[in-house]
């Protein structure tokens, strides 16, 4: 038990922080803990969480994916265009969009693993190229409204529970299985911890790297389609904020940006923290500027806790605490 606590210290801290935030929010704005408010918080967090799923895999593997904004946006726009508000085309459009996201991820991964292009540059280039292509495709004008099915998936409810929360839960389950219960997860953590040791242990490092970017492409395009349902239609720039929030959610969730550690369960807490903060600040009468300041401060504080400089201090405090307990 103690070993479990020590190993997952950062993830637990993220949840602790989240609960604390909820408490503070409830104090300042008593209505916040209402069912409807919690529901909308979870719905908003789900979009961040889904995008950040792929980002988590990429970052654990030692990379970073800056292409999520426009992979997300592309899937949203193209889906809306192809479906033209109808449900039936989704049957082939949705798989196509996912395949497209996976393809972008595949190309990103190939550039990084095979050609040695730094992840930042590779995914940045993919992002601007997609941005341009989508602008060309749409001519800058907004797309038709989203199909009803997509709307149902993103804002609908089943027995009072938002459908998207269920989707998120299912994805979190899959991610957890992949990270904790599959050979792929072991390979991924090894790759992110030390590419050389992984290579010397026979881990298929190139394949594992490519897979992380493919997963990121998949989740970004899924999030894009769902987000279309939330906002009613696809619009240009709808993915822009998700670069920052996906990386921030992963960092707040306790993963090292250098790779090799972290877990999607931490990222889930990170996504919730970011979303609750968004809800908290209006309650405190703070502007969106203040929100950004708080975001930055939260990232700095959480990554400091995880840093080497604090690792010794943190674990010695932890040990002392658990001895006293």
């Amino acid at each position, binding site marked *: 038990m103690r*070993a479990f606590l020590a190993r997952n210290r950062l993830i637990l801290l993220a949840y602790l922080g989240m609960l604390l935030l909820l408490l503070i929010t409830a104090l300042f704005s008593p209505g916040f803990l209402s069912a409807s408010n919690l529901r909308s918080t979870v719905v908003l967090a789900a979009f961040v969480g889904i995008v950040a799923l792929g980002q988590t895999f990429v970052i654990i593997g030692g990379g970073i994916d800056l292409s999520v904004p426009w992979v997300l946006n592309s899937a949203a726009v193209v889906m809306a265009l192809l479906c033209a508000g109808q449900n039936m085309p989704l049957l082939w459009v949705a798989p196509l969009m996912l395949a497209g996201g996976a393809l972008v991820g595949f190309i990103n991964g190939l550039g990084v693993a095979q050609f040695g292009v730094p992840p930042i540059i590779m995914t940045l280039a993919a992002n601007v190229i997609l941005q341009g292509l989508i602008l060309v495709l749409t001519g800058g004008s907004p797309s038709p409204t989203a199909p009803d099915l997509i709307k149902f998936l993103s804002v609908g409810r089943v027995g009072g529970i938002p459908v998207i929360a269920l989707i998120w839960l299912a994805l979190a389950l899959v991610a957890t299985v992949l990270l904790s*219960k599959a050979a792929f997860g072991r390979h991924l953590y090894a790759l992110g911890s030390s590419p050389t040791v992984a290579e010397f*242990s026979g881990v298929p490092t190139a394949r594992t790297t490519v897979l992380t970017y493919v997963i990121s492409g998949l989740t970004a395009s899924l999030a894009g389609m769902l987000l279309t349902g939330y906002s009613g239609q696809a619009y240009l720039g709808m993915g822009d904020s998700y670069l920052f929030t996906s990386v921030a959610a992963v960092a707040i969730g306790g993963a090292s940006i250098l790779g090799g550690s972290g877990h999607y369960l931490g990222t889930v807490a990170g996504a919730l923290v970011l979303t609750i903060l968004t809800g908290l600040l209006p309650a405190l009468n703070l502007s969106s500027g203040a929100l950004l300041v708080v975001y930055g401060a939260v990232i700095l504080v959480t990554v400091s806790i995880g840093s080497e400089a604090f690792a010794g201090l943190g674990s010695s405090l932890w040990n002392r605490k658990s001895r006293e307990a």
Partner: protein
Amino acid sequence: MDLIIANSLSKRFGGIVALDRVEFSARAGEVHALLGENGAGKSTFIQILSGALRHDDGAILLDGQDYRPADPDAARARGIAAVFQELSLIPDLTVEQNIWFRQEPLTSFGTANRSEIRRRTLELFAKYHFPTLRPDLEVSRLSLAERQIVEIAKALAKQPRVLILDEATSALPAREAEWLLRLTRQLAAQGLLVIFISHRMAEVRAVADRLTIFRNGRTIAMHESSAVGDAEIVSQMIGRNLGRLYPERISTATGRVALKVSSFSSGNRLKNVEFDLLEGEVLGVGGLQGHGQRELFQALFGASKATGSIELWGKPAAISSPRAALTGRDGIALVPEDRRGQGLLLAKSVRENLTLAVIRRFTENGLLNGRKEAALVGEMVDFLRIKTRTPEQLAGTLSGGNQQKVIFGKMLLTEARVLLLYDPTRGVDVGTKGEIFQLMRDLAAKGYAILFHSSDMEELVHVADRVLVMRNGRVAATLAGERISEEGILSAAILESEAA
């Protein structure tokens, strides 16, 4: 009055005593050689002199004054400059920028004065007859030998009173090595003290006025170079190390060839290596450090490129990557040199490390069977007697010996029966060393074929059935039976006359 005097100098790393009341003295104007086997304490000693390490006990007097530099800068300020094997050059700066780094002559605009730097560089090169070297080339484009020469120039640019050369000739081709020997004499003639470390006996003989011999962290003797013979030096370097337990060597080699290596070459570090490794055999690979042992092990494991052919159990094998080497029973496994950089995930558990190479074996329908994994991990922990509180303990928190056992376990789990062991006992306590040797003999008896490199010759002598001695990337000699002795290995590795 001697320039440097060390009195009863001691240094410990954790529980390991690296220097044990070492005595040393050397005077200005001489070339003083420091001799000893790998691990005798030479490099610890010169790291203390050059400010990279601080001693625990004893005292050093420089010019009669206490000398205890806080860092390399402080040592340089007192006139001591060292040329280490591990280079400190900046790859993207030019030769001359490196030589004068942080002490550039400046123009009145505060910029480095290029023409003055060039003038001083050429002056330095001319004064010491440096081999031709373009001062305006980036260091990243130089060969290892050229970098070594730049490192020497960088040390001389500080106008030291004491110059320490640690194996400075080992990276140099013959002509440049000769130049360096002339240079050391020239410097001594100018009144400098040159502390000269080399494994090449002929070189030591050529330049040293006096020599001090270290063994097991102690000073064994100091001689006038002219007054002592090779045989005496070698025997004092080796000494008689008692009290270590080696398992009884019962040859279990069969006639079956497990690994056949022919015309195996890699760059210019490995030239046309050929040998057979038999089933049930422990084949030692010896020689001085840096003569191709590392390249041989890496290339056999697919971690670096090589040409030539490899046969495993009679079948040709194409090993292009470690992944291709680790193919189960007919594969090759490596216990690598760099335990922390190549062998272990320090921040992961013993369990995760042990099963990393074979994790797929525990999956059923894509899911890991934790119980099956835990059972095998438990077996391996027991079999190797890995001292860990639980298999969940982080590998980085284990002792060196137990870390090494985890790497052994990881490779044994792959079931590969050809094992490459690169210096598996380095930094391992004596007790665990004994266990590792016993394990090697046990595995050999079970039909494993083991290629074993150690930087400690004594280990090769007591554990290996045969020993390949490497020199300049080639197999210089293959020793068997009675001929396996430290003298035999050292002779084949050092003394050029026996090269043929």
